[in-house]
């Protein structure tokens, strides 16, 4: 009688200890997870800022380029008209350079942004 009771008590004590250990482990795990995820979030925020900054640089440069394109197009248009007149007057056919229609830039059309998995090499450009 005594032996069995003692054994059961021991096993209970053991299981109680195990359960306390498990609970403590779970708690520690949670703490580790919280720190890890916080760290990762910080890193991702940093990458986002980097990407945004680089985007802004390119965006401003693109605006400058667009202005140049517009200006050159106008200039070309005026020169062409001049050549047009000259060719009419002189009957000479001039090879008038065509004006590329850059105004309707396909890439500026509102295209749906497909989510691409973020990868490190995205920024080697």
């Amino acid at each position: 009688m005594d032996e069995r009771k003692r054994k059961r008590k021991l096993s209970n004590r053991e299981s109680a200890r195990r359960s306390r250990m498990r609970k403590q482990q779970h708690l520690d795990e949670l703490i580790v997870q919280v720190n890890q995820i916080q760290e990762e979030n910080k890193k991702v925020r940093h990458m986002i800022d980097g990407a945004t900054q680089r985007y802004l640089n390119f965006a401003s440069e693109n605006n400058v380029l667009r202005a140049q394109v517009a200006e050159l197009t106008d200039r070309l248009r005026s020169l062409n008209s001049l050549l047009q007149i000259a060719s009419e007057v002189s009957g000479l056919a001039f090879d008038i350079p065509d004006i590329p229609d850059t105004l309707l830039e396909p890439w500026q059309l509102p295209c749906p942004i497909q989510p691409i998995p973020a990868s490190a090499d995205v920024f080697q450009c």
Partner: protein
Amino acid sequence: MDNSKKTIYKNSSIFASSDMKRSPSELALQAYVASEDGRRNHQKSDIFGGSDQGFFAIENGDHMHFPFKNLEIPKDSCTNIFTDKPLWSQNLYPNQPMVSVAMDSQSSICVDSPQSIKNPSGQENQAIGASSGSSHEQSDEDDLEMEAGSYEQSTNPLDIKRIKRMVSNRESARRSRRRKQAHLADLEQQVDQLRGDNASLFKQLADASQQFKDATTNNRVLKSDVEALRAKVKLAEDMVARGSLTSSLSHLLQNYLNTPQDYVNTNMNQINTISPIISTPGGNNSPYSGITDSNIGLENAEAFNNNVSNGLITDAVRVPEIWTWESHVAPVSK
């Protein structure tokens, strides 16, 4: 069944050797009880079916100290303690509410470790109650609280202090358990929330990098556009500067040939105004070969003008000779 009887007789000897503190009144009481039990032990042992629970002594200061017989309760079932509970309260002193109360918590006694029985002091019940498994801590606490209440009756200052400390310990234990539980729940919630942030951050990252990629492609395209346009503009400028006027000039002259003489002077004046522009040398390999020939012709005309302006050639007739040669060349380039 017989072994249970044997242990009961042995009982009194075990009883005497117990290490409990014995006040004189207790001894007298024991003597009385021993005789009392001796008379009834047959009856009880059958009912209790023998148990090795040992005996219970409820120390109550100088109050009634009532030892219980060493009962042979079968190891595998504590429950039969409950069955015999009514009997217990009967043969016990009616003014001992504490004792029946002790019975309530007896279930926890059989659950817990044997050594708690070896020190059958007054605290036995609370010690057991406090150390009971956390699994059913709530229910235990409530029982014990009631019990603590009943302690109040004793006016002994020592007891009161002990009880106060006990109660405060229990409170603080409960508070710390609650705090720990809250901390755990908080951590769980924090992890979930951080996971949500993480997901949305990655989405933002994807959008940002897509935007960035579009910008780089735009940039490349725009740069090539600008280059192309620059080339074309330069080309157009060259054409305007070099060729167009000479060809239009030759065209004008052609008109002159089909028209009467008096137009000559007016043409001449026009040539004057135009000639300074055409002074550019026709040397570069301009694609319009026809025009370069006419340049040569024009240079003669220019020389001719100088002569006229110098007043050397006054006879207007000479002009047609030169131009006839000119007209011969012009049609070629048409």
